[in-house]
């Protein structure tokens, strides 16, 4: 990455810093203020959209570490998220624990479940690993519907009351907004730290060539399982927040298709970059909102009137499929790559190189 003229690193810390120039600080602070003051001028719909976006961001950033950085195919992210949601719901309902304890606990429980299937990654690769994570999805859905009703409510799911922290009730969209925004920001910052650490470099080494990584002394088994652990931890936290936001947990909310959407977000944004995960999530969520908004209108003018409300669901599927296929064939490095090119040419303008 090139830097503006006159800005150069003298130490390793400077070289690895996320923010290097004062305009970047100004942008960051302005953006933070914008996000924090959003409830002041954003309507209820915007806040609801942002809440789902923040939660999705956590799950997709976790998936990015697992898939984009460590190179492990994972089709079970939504099952891991579901485990987190059920764990948070059950801990709150049955043990009445405070949320500063249940959210990390949900993360850890989901992470253990994820690492269990990640252990398969120690034995198999590629297609076989994809199959294992699909199996995780089925095991999750089956277990949640069959375990004793007192634990997870079987087909009725879990219903939660609004939670509180330090006497502050999270009972409407705005209060939830601050909860999910702060946790999500923290998790994303953590991900940025993680991928620049020695752990992150080890994960990338395992992804790029696991034999070579083993030769230079990286414990390949450990890092493969660890990548599942971290990815599922993020999913678990996202699931816990989802449970507290929707206040209802049911295994049908966490389907294989949700995992496919998350992977689609990664592909659109760009593999192997936290920024890519964020761009992809925002772009796909906006597209989804767009279709939900214009779906009924398309329905009126189109000749497909026989499907009724199904048009939204089905055209979303077509869109997702198209987006995944087109990006893989024509822009495998995703929008983050495009964004870097734009940034680069802005910096060196008016010169071509």
């Amino acid at each position, binding site marked *: 990455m090139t830097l503006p003229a006159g800005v150069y690193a003298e130490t390793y810390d400077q070289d690895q810093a996320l923010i290097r120039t004062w305009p970047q600080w100004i942008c960051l602070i302005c953006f933070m203020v914008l996000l924090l003051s959003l409830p002041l001028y954003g309507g209820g719909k915007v806040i609801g959209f942002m809440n789902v976006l923040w939660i999705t961001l956590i799950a997709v950033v976790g998936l990015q570490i697992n898939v984009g950085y460590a190179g492990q195919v994972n089709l079970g992210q939504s099952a891991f998220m579901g485990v987190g949601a059920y764990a948070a719901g059950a801990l709150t309902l049955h043990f009445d624990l405070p949320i500063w304890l249940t959210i990390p606990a949900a993360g850890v429980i989901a992470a253990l479940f994820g690492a269990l299937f990640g252990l398969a990654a120690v034995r198999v690769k590629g297609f076989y690993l994809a199959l294992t994570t699909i199996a995780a999805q*089925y095991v999750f859905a089956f277990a949640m519907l069959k375990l004793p009703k007192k634990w997870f409510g079987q087909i009725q799911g879990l219903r939660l009351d609004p939670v509180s922290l330090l006497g502050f009730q999270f009972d409407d969209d705005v209060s939830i907004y601050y909860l999910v925004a702060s946790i999500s920001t923290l998790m994303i910052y953590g991900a940025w730290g993680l991928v620049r650490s020695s752990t992150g470099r080890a994960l990338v080494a395992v992804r790029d060539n696991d034999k070579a990584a083993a030769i230079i002394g990286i414990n390949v088994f450990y890092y493969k399982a660890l990548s599942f652990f971290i990815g599922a931890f993020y999913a678990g936290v996202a699931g816990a927040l989802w449970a507290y936001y929707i206040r209802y947990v049911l295994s049908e909310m966490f389907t294989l298709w949700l995992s496919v959407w998350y992977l689609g977000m990664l592909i659109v944004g760009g593999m192997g970059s936290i920024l890519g995960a964020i761009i992809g999530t925002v772009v796909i969520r906006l597209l989804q909102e767009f279709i939900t908004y214009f779906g009924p209108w398309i329905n009126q003018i189109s000749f497909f009137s026989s499907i009724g409300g199904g048009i939204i669901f089905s055209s979303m599927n077509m869109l997702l499929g198209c987006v995944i296929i087109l990006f893989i064939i024509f822009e495998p490095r995703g929008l983050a790559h495009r964004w870097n090119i734009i940034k680069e040419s802005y910096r060196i303008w008016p010169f071509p190189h």
Partner: protein
Amino acid sequence: MISLLSHIINGALIGLLFALVAMGFVIIYRSARVFNFAQGEIVILGAFLFWTFSQYWELPIWLSLILAFCASVVLGLIIERVILRPLVGEELFALVMVTIGLLVFIRGLVLVTWGAEVHFIPPVFSVKGVKVGPLMIDRGLVYGGAFTIFMSILFSWFFNHTRLGLEMTAVAEDHQIALSLGLNVKRSIAMAWAISGALCTLSAIVFVSGKGMTFMAADIGLAALPVALLAGLESIGGLVLAGLLIGVSMGLAEHFLDSVLQGGVGAVFPFFIMIIVLLIRPTGLFGWRTIERI
């Protein structure tokens, strides 16, 4: 006792149907080294095309059958040419994701074109059940089982004894070596997709003939995964045995566990078997090579 017997026989026949769908996977995987997750979607696309030809256009059944087969062969060729040819040599993740993207896309396409309501597929075989002793068995499934066994013998012979089949087997073993020996790798892969498309329509017709179907029937594609994996992803003859094993164990699980767990065991049981196979012997029963581990 009769319930047990009927669970076993029905399970075995459903297992053979899964094996027929799985045969499509295996033929593609053998020559293209692509695992086509969209197989179930291609199956229902074939069934819906058959519905369109026979019910909507009101063509005679035999003509609709021929048209549906032709359409699915063309579909297989188009998918290969448009989507997978540009990705030759790409990393595995791209191949996994592109077929999943295809799955989602076809599912949306089917919903947009045919909608979510139940479509009644005209019976190709007589709908009267086959009576075996005290049991009534679905006639379509019996024919399906016979087709599976016949097809597996046919393709085992084709891949081991004909020039074209041997070429495809050689391509399956190593693309580069096959290329350097002057074999036409592209043609072999295209052939595999065409055969697989036809097999998909065959399993679709066995699966839904004389029944009502919605797009949800596509889940058979995922249900066939464990069969393909247990057989070993490269073995066509092994599919019959794997299908029987999984089907019978599924029937037994339904018989003995459904009362304990309030139903629904049958649908999940193959995936439990799949996890066990993945953990103990990822090459399956008759897989070719030692699987690439680490």
